[in-house]
């Protein structure tokens, strides 16, 4: 018996049905992406960071000293693993997190005000500029938060918390008519 197994997204229940038109303030959920945790070996933190910063083929998210989440839109989980192994050349441990994380992409003119309802960080561009990323608390859930543009942020959350975080984000965005759908 040969079979292809269906991959179920953590938010399938929440987002099932025809995609609604995106509003001005919109929450897009990436359906498939490769995510890996990179853990630099002791003493190799700077080398690994330099190596990872060389390429533009994936997005780097700061988690902690010597620890990054790497997100790739194009790679498979295995492909990303291979690419990172090659880049880091044995100076870091790569852990596949593609199934462990859910990526939320929040965009629109009110994103900062929406996020302020759950995130204690100062998200003013002077304090958290485009390109900045950090682990932070959003409501009750620890997420990785990144600013990807003036009015766009990405949150990477643990899969098991995805429904709770989704409910919280929608409540936070209610004032600004936040819509949500799977991305593309």
């Amino acid at each position, binding site marked *: 018996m040969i079979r292809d197994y269906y991959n179920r997204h953590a938010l399938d229940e929440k987002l099932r049905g025809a995609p609604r038109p995106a509003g001005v303030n919109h929450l897009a959920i990436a359906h498939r992406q490769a995510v890996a945790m990179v853990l630099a070996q002791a003493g190799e933190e700077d080398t690994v960071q330099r190596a990872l910063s060389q390429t533009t083929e994936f997005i780097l998210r700061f*988690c*902690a*000293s010597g*620890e990054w989440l790497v997100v790739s839109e194009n790679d498979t989980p295995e492909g990303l693993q291979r690419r990172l192994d090659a880049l880091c050349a044995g100076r870091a441990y790569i852990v596949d997190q593609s199934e462990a994380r859910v990526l939320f992409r929040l965009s629109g003119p009110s994103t900062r005000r929406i996020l302020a309802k759950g995130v*204690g*960080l*100062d998200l003013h561009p002077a304090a958290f500029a485009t390109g900045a990323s*950090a*682990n*932070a*608390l959003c409501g009750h859930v*620890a997420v990785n938060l990144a600013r990807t543009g003036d009015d766009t942020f990405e949150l990477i959350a643990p899969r098991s918390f995805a429904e709770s975080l989704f409910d919280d984000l929608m409540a936070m965005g209610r004032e600004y008519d936040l819509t949500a759908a799977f991305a593309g």
Partner: protein
Amino acid sequence: MASLITCPHCGVRPKEEFSIRGDASLVRPAPTASDEAWHYYVYVRANPRGRTHEHWQHVAGCRRFLVVERDTYTHEVHSVTDGAVVARENGR
């Protein structure tokens, strides 16, 4: 209790992102140390009015154990240092 802690890795964060473990001035005794040394390490705690060193883990951030030096009376935070840095300095 401070409202904000300046994490050396993540910047200024609300206290809700942290979990407090307790006295950071204790040094784990050698396994062969005396019963008394172990007793003090595990059970005996001072409750000072004034400066203390505590381990605060940035659980919702970098997950590092930080040594927070703060005043239990004025609530002033004097310093926040990575726990491993302090541990190495103490020669543990």
